[in-house]
């Protein structure tokens, strides 16, 4: 079926606008779209979105992570195998993380990573035919915010929720950060790591994030206020 930008699309639909834009300039097609011989076909159910001038993608619901180059992910170290760590990032196979890809690591000076540690890393190589490769440094050799996450609490959620809370227009983190201090790392693989001063505050952050999945911006603000008032009431 023929669809327009902004419509609800199903796999097998095609959009003429992509072809007409593509005739004039280069088109970027994102997740949920696939070029075949004559048309660009939709492969996922969701809403067809466009960003000017020529980027198209389908916003769809998903829980299972498919690794993608350049995304930050939270993984759990499964195994030490020679000079690499095997890290579970929730994809179809484990990712590899070289011990040299930490800040200041040399052959003699190994980073201290144990099995079971939680790691925040960037995906350097992601291909359907190879296992993904992670790094814990940026291109300048600095660790930035990447590396081992100590203490804290990790929970899973849908990939949409991660995209939602990380989007600049979402008021969730802005409202929460004014209420009480906490640290948060969100992996695009549907895992969130949080750490606050007390257990009660940690659980409150977790519940606020999970509760925000199906709420609108205004509802999120009221929910954050509610949680904050409950929290302060109990502590005092």
């Amino acid at each position, binding site marked *: 079926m023929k669809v327009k930008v902004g419509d609800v699309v*199903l796999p097998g639909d095609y959009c003429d606008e992509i072809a007409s834009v593509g005739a004039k300039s280069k088109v970027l097609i994102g997740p949920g779209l696939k070029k075949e011989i004559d048309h660009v076909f939709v492969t996922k159910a969701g809403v067809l979105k466009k960003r000017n001038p020529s980027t198209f993608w389908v916003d769809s619901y998903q829980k299972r992570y498919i690794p993608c180059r350049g995304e930050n992910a939270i993984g759990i170290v499964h195994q030490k195998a020679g000079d690499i760590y095997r890290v579970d990032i929730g994809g179809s196979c484990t990712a590899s993380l070289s011990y040299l890809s930490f800040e200041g690591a040399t052959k003699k000076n190994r980073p201290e990573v144990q099995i079971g540690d939680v790691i925040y890393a960037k995906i350097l190589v992601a291909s359907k035919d190879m296992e993904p490769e992670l790094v814990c440094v940026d291109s300048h050799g600095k660790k930035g915010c990447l590396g081992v996450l100590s203490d804290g609490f990790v929970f899973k959620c849908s990939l949409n929720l991660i995209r939602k809370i990380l989007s600049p227009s979402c008021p969730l983190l802005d409202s929460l950060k004014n209420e009480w201090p906490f640290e948060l790392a969100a992996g695009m693989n549907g895992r969130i790591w949080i750490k606050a001063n007390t257990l009660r505050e940690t659980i409150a952050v977790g519940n606020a994030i999970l509760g925000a999945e199906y709420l609108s911006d205004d509802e999120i603000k009221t929910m954050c206020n509610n949680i904050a008032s409950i929290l302060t009431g109990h502590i005092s």
Partner: protein
Amino acid sequence: MVEEDLKDFKLKPMKCELNFLNKSDGSAILAQGETVVLVSVNGPLDIKSTSQNMEKATLEVIFSSKGGKPTVSDRFKENVIRQTCETAIFGCLYPRTGITITIQELEDYGGLLPTTINCTCLALLNSGLAMRHVVAAVGCALDEAGNLIIDPTNDQIQTATATMYFVFDSREKNLVTGFSTGTFGEGVYDEALERCRAASDLVFNFYRDIVASYCNVIG
């Protein structure tokens, strides 16, 4: 003729809930009339290397009947569903992985197989796996008087001389899968095919409505 029939033609009422199970990657529960099926999709997953395929994803379908004991007819249903899904899923995007589809029959009041296929398709849509097209299954029965009944009820199936089930894709409405029981002539089969093809539009519209109602919440 087909067009005229379709104007006031309705399928049995369909009710659906997506994301019914919160632990699986995609799930759907679908009621078509009184027949109810629950499907869960997990994948792409790591599977043992003997069953890995270098070219595409390996599909595994598990059908659990209400009684719980696996029978030969369950194996047949698993095979039909697996082959139907293999055409629908872009398996080449997930090589060396496995996709598991688990089906639980909850109520069977006729037309179990079409309901199962439609429910599987909805669960796949919910899981976010890349698909070539969606599929819609429609059943029809031939009664003793020789009339074709689209989407028959349980009583009509019990008394029918033949039942035919067709699965269509959403792109060109091509036949993906067809299976039938009983005896019938070639002309009857062709007519049943065309009428089911027309009726499949209703199922595709239903999919679109369901996805639209969930997009409003999530998007």
